[in-house]
């Protein structure tokens, strides 16, 4: 009887004679797992699988302990639970393979199979759902609870780092026109007092053409010259500064740092290795974090409105300034991914808040001071 299946024709042609002489029974190749010696063995199926070489019985494998191992097609490779873990028996004879498969009920038990895949999919979906829940509820909660625990000194350090990076990134030098500085200090001082901050708050105007302003952790407020240029009266700038002070009061940047860090980490964990997941991570992260920061913006607006009203000044000019910068934002469909509420909504809200609260305070800056502030970055850009 031929010991090899038909597909290994290259072996059959020149060695079948010697092999059929050596293995008269249906045979196989046996490795005992202790050395790599290749033994041509005879196999006998009784109540167990008997592996013999000549008269010597090398092993006796019970059928229910036999497992399939990976092999090229056309070859059945077996291992046994009670044998050394790497002992292998290789069989090519199709009839013998069929008989063994029929007798070993648990042959495939240890190989990855369809049931295993279903379990993987199930657990993965469960893990994904739990990660999404943690991102949506757990991380904001953690950010909320952790932020007050962060010591001020540490927050100030982060602020220093961010400040140095901001100055490099935006190539912004602090503007130092003396009269402008004085006007700016006066404006910030009034807001600070009204909002109840001590004088640890630092603020500067940076010579950057971008119309923007922001607060950094540890009490730093930056105004870009670009925004100053677009402003038409002190109330507009005061509103913006009050809004940034609101971020400081709520420690929004610290909270956002914790929130963004946690969210990035978890979403990165979720998508792992799907190629190009970078874009996916970025997209889903901005979705999550922008909804979070919209809330922070609304709260900062509330703070700005209150502060301005305490000074007896209207909040609406700030909204008008923003409207001038962004233009109308609504009616374009979808605002899930924008980090701020729609400008026109903010303007409407401030308008409404002003309605019940007639501004009766003195102007925050005289017109001469306002001109000086506009010209704080020198170079004549601030001229009317």
């Amino acid at each position: 009887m031929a010991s090899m299946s038909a597909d290994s024709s290259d072996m059959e042609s020149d060695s079948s004679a010697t092999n059929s002489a050596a293995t008269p029974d249906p045979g196989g190749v046996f490795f005992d797992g202790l050395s790599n010696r290749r033994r041509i063995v005879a196999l006998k199926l009784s109540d167990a699988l008997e592996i013999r070489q000549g008269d010597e019985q090398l092993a006796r494998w019970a059928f229910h302990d036999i497992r399939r191992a990976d092999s090229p097609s056309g070859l059945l490779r077996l291992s046994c639970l009670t044998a050394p873990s790497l002992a292998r028996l290789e069989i090519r004879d199709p009839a013998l393979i069929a008989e063994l498969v029929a007798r070993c009920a648990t042959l495939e038990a240890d190989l990855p199979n369809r049931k295993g895949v279903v379990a993987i999919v199930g657990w993965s979906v469960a893990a994904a759902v739990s990660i999404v829940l943690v991102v949506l509820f757990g991380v904001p909660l953690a950010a909320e609870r952790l932020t007050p625990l962060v010591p001020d000194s540490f927050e100030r350090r982060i602020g220093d780092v961010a400040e140095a990076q901001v100055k490099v990134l935006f190539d912004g030098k602090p503007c130092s026109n003396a009269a402008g500085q004085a006007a700016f200090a006066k404006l910030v001082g009034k807001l600070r007092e009204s909002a109840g901050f001590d004088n640890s708050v630092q603020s500067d105007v940076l010579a950057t053409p971008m119309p923007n302003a922001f607060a950094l952790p540890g009490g730093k407020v930056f105004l870009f010259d670009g925004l100053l240029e677009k402003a038409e009266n002190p109330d507009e700038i005061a509103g913006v500064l009050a809004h940034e002070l609101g971020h400081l009061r709520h420690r929004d940047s610290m909270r956002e740092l914790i929130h963004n860090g946690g969210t990035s980490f978890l979403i990165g964990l979720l998508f792992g290795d799907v190629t190009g997941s970078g874009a996916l991570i970025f997209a889903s992260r901005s979705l999550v974090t922008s909804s979070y920061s919209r809330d922070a913006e609304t709260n900062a607006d509330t703070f700005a409105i209150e502060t301005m009203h305490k000074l007896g000044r209207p909040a609406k000019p700030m909204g008008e300034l923003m409207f001038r910068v962004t233009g109308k934002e609504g009616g374009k469909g979808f605002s899930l991914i924008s980090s701020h509420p729609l400008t026109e909504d903010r303007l409407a809200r401030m308008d409404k808040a002003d309605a019940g609260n007639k501004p009766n305070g003195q102007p925050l800056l005289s017109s001469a001071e306002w001109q000086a502030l506009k010209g704080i970055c020198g170079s004549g850009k601030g001229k009317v």
Partner: protein
Amino acid sequence: MNDMSWTPLGPPQPPPQPVPPPMPVAFSGSRKEFLRLVARGAGLELVTVGFYRFWLTTDIRRHLWSNTLIDGDAPEYTGRGKELLIGFLVALAILLPVYLGYFLIGIEAEHLKAFASLPLVAFFYVFGQFAIYRARRYRLTRTVWRGVRFWMSGSGWIYALNASLWGLLVVITFGLALPWREAALERYKMRHSYYGDLQGSFEGRGWEFFKRGWWLWLLMPFALSSYVFAPFAYAAFKAVEWRWWLSGIRFGEVRLESTLSRGALIGLYWKVIGCILLLVVVFAVYVVLSTLLVASMSGSSIDTFFKTEAFAKSIPLIVLLGIGYLAFALAMNVVMRVYLMRDLWVRVLSSTIVHNIAAAANVTARGDLANALGEGFADGLDVGGF
């Protein structure tokens, strides 16, 4: 040609010829089967938001290992996806505080000077090298041939230190030191690799690698500046590298040799580029079509649709593009795996010859299993190989 695997081992045989003929390595797997494997795997990766990668990697290795015939016998990959998952989770638990520490140290460094924390990236480079070594150790200990496993000793940290210092030298010499770096690192890896009680070694010399590839170094400026030329240069470099590497590998008296020609991989890389371009075109057409579709459904003309920037905020469009993008990414995955794993594997194997395999005829099993922590780090840090 495979008769060697049968005749000398029947017990009553006369002693074989003193110098057995060199033995080519064969691959018996079907390409269609592999394609089905990775396509199904890509789909499952999508459904499991990426977690299936551990099992897909395992299945790919099982397929490649068990279809490679060395002296007529195929090795076996005994690793399992679950091990990789556990390795990944443990690596994550270790990486998390490391990242946190990195962040805090970074803040202190930035406090002194803006962007002073960038050199800390170097730490992750060293860590990545450690991961590469340990991942290799995992793969090797899961590789079994003729009932005996490969294994590895040595220290991942010493290797990482070596690799990093050599890496520095390569940077300083504009890449000229690369052959010597690879030779030194391979020597370390192979000296600590074993098949049972058979110790490995690496006999490739940096100088030989340099001799075969120096002209590529000279051509590098052109390769970097020309999109058409770069794939040729890269393919030639990889071919030279593979051939040099394989020809240096020894296990005891067993010697590998590779006859891979310099141009052997050029077609492969161009096929990958062709496929990617095709996918990009298909994706672009899909983007245009879905934009037109959404525009026509929303009732506005194409012009106003774009002018008002409404297209950037339309939910149906974002969903359509998201689905298209995912399909595109998965198709890319399949292409990469079929060409750059399976085809590359087969191409390189077909050029490989084993000399004096008889020296590995009676090897005693030794060596313990290594854990998959290194693979986990490699996954977390995005370094890795097959």
